[in-house]
């Protein structure tokens, strides 16, 4: 039996985490939530999720620092990372790439659409699923 995909969301806003989990539940995706970088790094190692969705503005460590650590660690290097953030300047996006992120989605009016396109590309939701 195939196991359901699990997404680790590293996000300090409970409201946004709840909203994200609601979107994912429509596609039978389990969501783990970490509210800061250190907790996220620990959960990524312990649970090896299918995907990590990472905010940039986090307490104690920012998302770029978390991403660099994930990509330096043998146990987590292969897990795709999408940065989902309100930091939407072009240099923020390039900083995300330099930190090793696989994708970067600004939290704009099209964020949900963009995220679903990314999940389809990664094979986590069916190609014919609608937003």
């Amino acid at each position, binding site marked *: 039996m195939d196991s359901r995909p699990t997404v680790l969301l590293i996000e300090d806003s409970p409201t946004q985490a709840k909203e994200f989990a609601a979107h994912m539940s429509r596609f039978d995706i389990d969501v783990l939530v970490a509210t800061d970088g250190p907790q996220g790094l620990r959960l990524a190692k312990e649970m090896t999720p299918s995907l990590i969705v990472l905010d940039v503005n986090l307490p104690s460590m920012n998302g770029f620092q978390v991403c660099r650590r994930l990509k330096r660690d043998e146990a987590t290097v292969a897990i795709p990372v999408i940065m989902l953030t309100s930091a939407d300047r072009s240099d923020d*996006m*390039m900083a995300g790439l330099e930190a090793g992120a696989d994708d970067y989605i600004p939290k704009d009016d099209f964020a949900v659409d*963009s995220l679903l*396109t990314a999940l389809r590309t*990664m094979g986590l939701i069916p190609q014919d699923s609608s937003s």
Partner: protein
Amino acid sequence: MFSTVIPVQGTFDIAKGRNLLRSHIAEQHWPTTTNVRAAALLTALGDLIVPACLDFSVPIHVEFAPDGAHRGIHVSCEVPEYCATDARMVQVQEALRQVTDHLLVDVEGGTVYITAYLHV
């Protein structure tokens, strides 16, 4: 070859354009990092166009070359020179250089011509 025009006047247009580019990049099965570079490119152009508070849209022309040696995205636009203050132009050109593989910026007859290539 797929081509489209993204009319830009406000930040919403940039967000809509980024989403449109993402869909086409996904259709091409290009690496997901292409999304980030394409989004950064469009955002940098938006940083030039949007603060100018124009009462008209600036069309950004986008062409996707799916095959060949120049496989990638070709973006061009023409911005009135009065929008492009020296300080803003320096900042935007620096951002565009960071994102693109090839950048051409020409100023002629009161218009700034920007052409950028992003190879995949």
